[in-house]
């Protein structure tokens, strides 16, 4: 088990391999479809972002509202391919990690290689379980987007697995081939 705390360095990313189990502690940022569109628009216009991307990890999640007495509601990963058009731009601007579920495009995998970044998978749908590893949540931008607002989450021992590493490894491909039966 590997333990990591963002911001991540190139060296942190380079030692990760597809299939590695990782526990994240510290702060990660949430963003999904609409927030990604806004971040990339700011980059294209050359305007400042609502948070510094350098070395950071974005978790693709739109949590349920926090019930009384809890920092956050249920908070499992959303399907990542919808962020594929935006992720290479963010990775080129310093983003080092993403957490989601599901396959990424060839363009994203190439960006991970070129800029030394990593794509982690969390268990889709295990949202009540995952919420137990989130200590606090605060909105940092785009409150008008509701569940799609950008939040800063403090996490402790947040379990993820390396799906796409910076060396071309792909856990989904390897896992599927290993268990596929002829026929």
């Amino acid at each position, binding site marked *: 088990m590997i333990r990591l705390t963002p911001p991540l360095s190139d060296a942190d990313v380079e030692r990760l391999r597809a299939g590695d189990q990782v526990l994240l502690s510290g702060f990660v940022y949430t963003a999904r479809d609409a927030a990604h569109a806004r971040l990339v628009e700011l980059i294209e216009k050359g305007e400042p972002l609502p948070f510094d991307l350098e070395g950071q990890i974005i978790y693709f999640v739109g949590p349920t509202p926090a019930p009384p007495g809890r920092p956050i509601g249920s908070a499992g990963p959303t399907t990542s391919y919808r962020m594929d058009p935006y992720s290479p731009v963010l990775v080129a601007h310093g983003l080092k990690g993403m957490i989601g579920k599901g396959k990424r495009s060839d363009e994203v995998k190439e960006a991970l290689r070129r800029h030394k970044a990593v794509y982690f998978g969390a268990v889709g749908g295990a949202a*009540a379980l995952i919420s137990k590893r989130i200590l606090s949540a605060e909105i940092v931008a785009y409150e008008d987007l509701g569940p799609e607002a950008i939040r800063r989450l403090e996490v402790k021992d947040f379990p993820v697995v390396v799906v796409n590493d910076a060396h071309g490894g792909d856990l989904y491909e390897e896992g599927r081939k290993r268990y596929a039966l002829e026929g």
Partner: protein
Amino acid sequence: MREVSVERITEAVRRLSVEANTRLGDDVVAAFERFREGEQSPTGRDVLAQLLENARIARDEGLPLCQDTGFAVVFVDLGQDVHLVGGDLYEAVNEGVRQGYREGYLRKSIVADPLRRKNTGDNTPAVVHVRLVPGDRVRITFAPKGGGSENMSGIAMLKPADGVEGVKRFVIDRVRQAGPNPCPPTIVGVGIGGTFEIAALLAKRALLRPVGDRNPDPFYGDLEEELLAEVNRLGIGPAGLGGTTTSLDVHIEVHPCHIASLPVAVNIQCHSARHKEVEL
């Protein structure tokens, strides 16, 4: 003619929206346990154990099973001897969704317009399918449908000559292409026949049948078993990390068909296979 107040429908939908989102059906929980025993991948077994733990936490603490608490899909089987009083049925359903999603701290995931994309803020409108049936009862089935698995669904207008082999190929291809995206292990709803829109609705209704229940027509029951075995040979596995449990079940519903047509629709349901029903 029996009178039913639409207020009762609002109340039922309010309650069902919270229950469906926090309590996984016993059929799905039993399937997780059954498939965990046969799962060949240690990682796959671990993922299934996490899904069982997630269902337990959601039930005990009243938390949503998944952060995607879905589009509110509501099936109403309305007895033809029922007179609904006190207001509009559709508005009554929407009011139930509004109340349930607010009080249950459920996520509001609906945008008012598909291209301008502003959130309605209360998870309305619901998708409501009303069917007129004999009798004087109202049966309401609430089935929140997540976007991630819905997006992996598809429809094909096959040629009659494509036959059962064409149907099998399409279903298996859909599951293969969906891969890890729709949160496997999935339940695969298949609608065959009817028209373009009927096939899709059949596929959605197929998801309401309990996991493990076979189509009563042995021809289709056997086809369900065969397709389930085939998709579980793809290797996708729990969470897509590799394994022998890609789907918990395949359900097929059929409808008479035009001589020129063979529509087939696949509606993929993630493992958060939630639905609750009540009869008024």
